[in-house]
């Protein structure tokens, strides 16, 4: 019992960096669950992933100018992410190229450019930090950034919730009413980019989407209502962060992949045991009703 307590609590009690990492991840989970749910509902999971990779050249230019400084890399990443989202949207709207294809083209360009730029100045270690994250280096400034992002995301999603839902399931409806639905689409993309920027220091640009998306995907095996999906995803994201950090601490493994893998376990568990469309229900379907 004592061993359990010491292995669960001592890492956080003894180390400031573990406490900061935990708080950062919990704040991240709180904000990003709603974003993740809408990424799924908009069928944009893979586009979100592409967007996360697209942060890299911006972060790399920030790195080039300011070294491994969080504000510089965050601003760079945010600008690059927004630019990619806007350009892909514009390309898709004004040419016959579909949005997923233009996202893929944009992100491949961005990833290649990013790796080139980091390699210009930094070492392989720097590149690994940017690609896979280094949550154990979270400082007070990053905590403020993550907390501000989480607050802004929750308020922003509350503000655009209704038009975003309508845009998701019936895109022409708002347009026929003369409302510019695309404004809400871009506001949502901006919030998504903001969350990925907040996540990339902890999880790296390659896996920034992990805490956003995996819990939301897992939640879709338990419920199909927008709000409850976010509410189910939240504790799973928080638990993934806790488990991932502890595993990373005790086994000296990189924290980003540990957290994302923990979230994957929740996904696989939900896929097997969930109450909707899960493997369990496929193998042993419950008896049907009379009417």
């Amino acid at each position, binding site marked *: 019992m004592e061993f359990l307590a010491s292995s669960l609590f001592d890492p956080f009690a003894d180390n400031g960096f573990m406490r900061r990492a935990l708080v950062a991840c919990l704040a991240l989970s709180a904000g990003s669950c709603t974003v993740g749910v809408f990424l799924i*509902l908009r069928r944009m999971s893979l586009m979100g992933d592409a967007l996360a990779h697209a942060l890299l050249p911006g972060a790399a230019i920030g790195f080039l100018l300011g070294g491994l400084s969080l504000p510089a890399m965050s601003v760079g990443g945010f600008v690059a992410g927004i630019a990619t989202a806007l350009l892909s949207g514009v390309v898709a709207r004004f040419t*016959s190229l579909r949005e997923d294809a233009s996202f893929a083209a944009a992100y491949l360009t961005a990833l290649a450019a990013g790796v080139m730029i980091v390699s210009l100045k930094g070492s392989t270690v720097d590149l690994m930090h940017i690609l896979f994250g280094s949550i154990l280096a979270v400082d007070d400034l990053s905590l403020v950034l993550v907390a501000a992002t989480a607050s802004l995301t929750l308020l922003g999603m509350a*503000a*655009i919730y*209704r*038009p975003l*839902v*309508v845009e*998701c*399931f*019936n*895109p*022409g*409806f*708002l*347009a*026929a*009413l*003369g*409302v510019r639905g695309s404004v809400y689409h871009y506001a949502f993309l901006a919030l998504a980019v903001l969350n990925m920027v907040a996540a990339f220091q902890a999880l790296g640009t390659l896996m920034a989407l992990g805490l956003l998306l995996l819990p939301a995907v897992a939640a879709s095996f338990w419920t*199909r*209502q*927008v709000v409850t*999906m976010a509410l189910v995803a939240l504790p799973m994201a928080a638990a993934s962060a806790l488990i991932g950090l502890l595993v990373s601490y005790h086994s000296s493994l990189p924290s980003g992949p540990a957290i994302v893998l923990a979230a994957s376990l929740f996904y696989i568990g939900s896929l097997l045991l969930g109450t909707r469309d899960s493997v369990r229900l496929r193998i042993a379907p419950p008896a049907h009703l009379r009417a």
Partner: protein
Amino acid sequence: MSAALRLVDVTVTYDRHPAVHHVCAEIPEGVCTAVVGPNGAGKSTLLKAMAGLVRIARGRVEIPERSQDKLAYLPQQSDVDRSFPISVLDMVLLGRWRDIGAFGAAGPADIDRAIHAMEAVGLHGFERRPLATLSAGQFQRALFARMLLQDAEIILLDEPFNAIDMRTTADLLALVRRWHEDKRTVVCVLHDLEQVRSHFPHALLLARELIAAGPAEETLTAANLLRARAMAESWDETAAICHPGEMAA
């Protein structure tokens, strides 16, 4: 009879090829107008142009100031993601968008009206059901309930009775008739000529270009229908640039 909508030389293109070509027509106010034509004749595109959903390459759609905010559009079913997790009541309540907007709360009066609209389309007791559990016919009824709530003066319906059984069609046609009695303008894309003849006094016959427009029985003559059917469905890849001055009749 004044016009609820005036189409002035409307051309809509996909990839420079016209889907709707130099169409001039007037949609009379307070009358049910059917838009008829073969597949690929540009009927849905014309409706989208009226609703402002596609870019018009040439010409314009004129809507009088007073009814500009009073337009409702029913998309083809494939344009809606029916698997989206939203309840039928919430979907129907969207018909009140102009009053409650993005932030307003739907009050008891709004919910009451929504429930009444759902009863009017025969969806009593479906309020809490997720949209995904509705059949095609029930879903169409729900979309009509939303339109009832929109209280629009100009109602655009794109193939509302596709894949809908006879009973549902009859119920929904009764609603169209009610709109007609309320002196609302209904424009409806239809394939069934019997339905047109018995419910729509006015018709537009389209085959990319306007073949005929006017009272339904004068428009849908055998000769006109034959001309519409003769429309080439495929694009002419070698087509020259269209200069309106030289347009053949």
